[in-house]
């Protein structure tokens, strides 16, 4: 018995400690859903086609908090992975710690600056230095609707939130759940983000969610946002607790519910059922006088490592990610649109085409805003306060004035 143990212990001790094969790159990410993995495999195959080995380190869950924790332990130990998938300010924050490799040579050679929407640069550069390569762009402020329910009830696509609420009430009378969602804070926040920009314009969104201007945060406009959020609560059924967003999407698909406010990752659920945009389901931006485009991007950053083989693999990965053909294939699977603006749109579906069109408009007219829920507005310590307040407001009985007060104090406390 003890021999077996001894052998086992010896076997464990002999296992390579962070072994690195020639030209292998470890990529850390939090993509664990089926479609996410399938999309990521496009990049993986691209890197492997260039003759490098891909070592996968996936850590899912907690909206990326798990992978953040794992990464922090790795960097503290001085053993960073070759590459990491970044959301929001993560890349920039690591760059501030001087652990991220610069990709300027690749960016210059690849003409990244001209190929990307300028609004993304704050998340991809630190002091004029490119520190991450973006693969895609999701839009968060979509409404997904069951076309048959809308048509049967004779409801047109709403042009404003009051119209949407009206439509919802009508649907409720017909025995349909107007809005499918779960009670998770982030799902509430998706709606909150949309309301912030839709009711008061993208400028207000910038002043509050990005600049954290105390006056705007405590303004009447903010109270209006919470008032409307309370109206939205009235459109949701009582069993929304612990409901995953995909289950909510399923409710729209099978006709239990009429609408869902969710990012374009929800589209995959419809497409997987063989449903077609504008034929079986509607996709339209959250209604507003000035349509905004609330984006989130996934990018890959490379950590500084000594091994030249890994350094070469990092370059290969960055080039693969920025390859227009790869971006097209990746995004056809993932449901998002390419981060690059020069990828041909022909093969994408109607919803994605609408996204391309809206994005071009938003870039021109100032409607491009980062999605706070996913970390593309203020830094996490502040964005979390918005999430706290919106989440607690939505499930509880707090008044709008109380919510605004809590928001202002929370932001002050986090400064």
């Amino acid at each position, binding site marked *: 018995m003890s021999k077996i143990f001894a052998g086992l212990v010896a076997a464990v001790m002999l296992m390579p400690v962070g072994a690195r094969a020639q030209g292998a790159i470890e990529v850390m990410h939090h993509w664990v859903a089926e479609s996410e993995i399938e999309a990521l495999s496009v990049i993986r195959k691209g890197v492997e086609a260039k003759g490098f080995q891909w070592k996968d380190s996936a850590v899912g869950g*907690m*909206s990326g*908090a798990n992978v*953040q*924790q794992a990464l*922090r332990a790795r960097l503290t130990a001085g053993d960073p992975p070759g590459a990491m998938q970044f959301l929001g300010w993560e890349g920039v*924050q690591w760059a*501030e*710690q001087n652990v991220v490799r610069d990709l300027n040579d690749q960016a210059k050679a690849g003409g990244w600056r001209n190929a990307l929407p300028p609004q993304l640069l704050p998340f991809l550069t630190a002091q004029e230095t490119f520190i991450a390569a973006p693969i895609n762009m999701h839009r968060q402020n979509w409404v997904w609707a069951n076309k048959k329910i809308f048509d049967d009830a004779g409801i047109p696509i709403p042009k404003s939130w009051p119209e949407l609420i009206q439509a919802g009430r009508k649907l409720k009378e017909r025995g349909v759940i107007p809005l499918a969602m779960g*009670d*998770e*804070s982030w799902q509430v926040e998706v709606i909150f983000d949309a309301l912030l920009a839709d009711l008061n314009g993208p400028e207000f969104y910038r002043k509050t969610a990005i600049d954290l201007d105390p006056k705007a945060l405590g303004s009447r406009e903010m109270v209006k946002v919470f008032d409307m959020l309370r109206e939205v609560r009235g459109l949701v*059924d*009582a*069993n*929304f*607790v*612990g409901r995953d967003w995909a289950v909510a999407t399923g409710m729209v698909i099978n006709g239990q519910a009429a609408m869902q406010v969710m990012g374009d990752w929800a589209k995959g659920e419809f497409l997987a059922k063989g449903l077609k945009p504008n034929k079986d389901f509607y996709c339209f931006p959250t209604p507003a006088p000035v349509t905004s485009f609330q984006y989130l991007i996934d990018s890959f950053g490379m950590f500084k490592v000594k091994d030249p083989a890994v350094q070469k693999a990092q370059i290969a990965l960055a080039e693969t990610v920025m390859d227009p053909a790869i971006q097209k294939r990746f995004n056809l699977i993932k449901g998002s649109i390419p981060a690059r603006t020069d990828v041909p749109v022909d093969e994408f579906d109607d919803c994605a085409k609408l996204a391309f069109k809206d994005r071009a408009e938003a870039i021109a007219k100032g409607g491009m805003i980062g999605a706070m829920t996913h970390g593309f507005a203020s*830094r*996490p*310590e502040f964005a*979390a306060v918005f999430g*706290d307040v919106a*989440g*607690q*407001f*939505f*499930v*509880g009985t707090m008044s709008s004035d109380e919510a605004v007060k*809590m928001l202002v*104090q*929370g932001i002050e*406390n*986090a400064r």
Partner: protein
Amino acid sequence: MNASRQSSRLAAWLPRLVVAPSLLIVLVTVYLFIAWTGVISVTSSKFVPVYDFVGLEQFARLWATPRWHIAVENLFIFSTLFLAISIGLGLLMAILLDQHVRAEGFLRAVYLYPMALSFIVTGTAWKWVLNPGLGIQKVVNDLGWATFRFDWIADPQMAIYTVVIAGVWQSSGFAMAIFLAGLRGIDNSVIKAAQIEGASLPLIYRQIIIPMLRPAMLSVVVLLSYIAIKSFDLVLALTNGGPGAATELPSTFMFSATFRRNQMGVGAASAVMMLMTVAAIIVPYLYSELRERNNG
């Protein structure tokens, strides 16, 4: 303790030498790390550790965070109820199991198995069972009792009690096992004597047996307190702190402050608060216990 003369020197030092590595490991991995956490709690650390000094600013920030107040209140509610109910149920199960029942082994395994499973595993199942539209409420409603309501998990005021339910489910079997062991250790001649004197069974249990379980009771309290203070997976899997922040606990607060909100200093401050609470409870008991043994 004295050994033979030649080796008395060695004998005196050998035990200390053998225990030294353990002590060293614990000094580093427990006490040095606690000290580090203490240091971080008085710095302005956000995303990564920085080593400046800002006094008690992070503690002030911590106590000005409504979420932390919810967490502290919840810990109090949760641990009190969790302990009380687990002990009550555990004791009941142990007493009933001790009545020479058939299939004792099977029943014991059924009560114990939740302890074996991680909440990463059982959280989803519990979510469904507690969900008013899917679980218990729906089943009872479908059976014909249409007005039956069990929607605590959806109610910010009640959600913490669902965490208690799931926690009790997981740990009461463990309490049962220790109580059962305690009961098996009791000499039944005492009970026989009481019976001969005409005492009724409930009376025997209340007056004789349960008081004799005191050591087991105290073991249960220690282990369950440990579980209560460390509850983390339980909350994450069941409610993820929601609805709103209704089921936040200090352990989940600490994690999200450090890894989700870039408030490492606040996270460290909350860890220090937790450690101080634990120390305030444990150290006096430890002290009195070890003194007693020295004297005795």
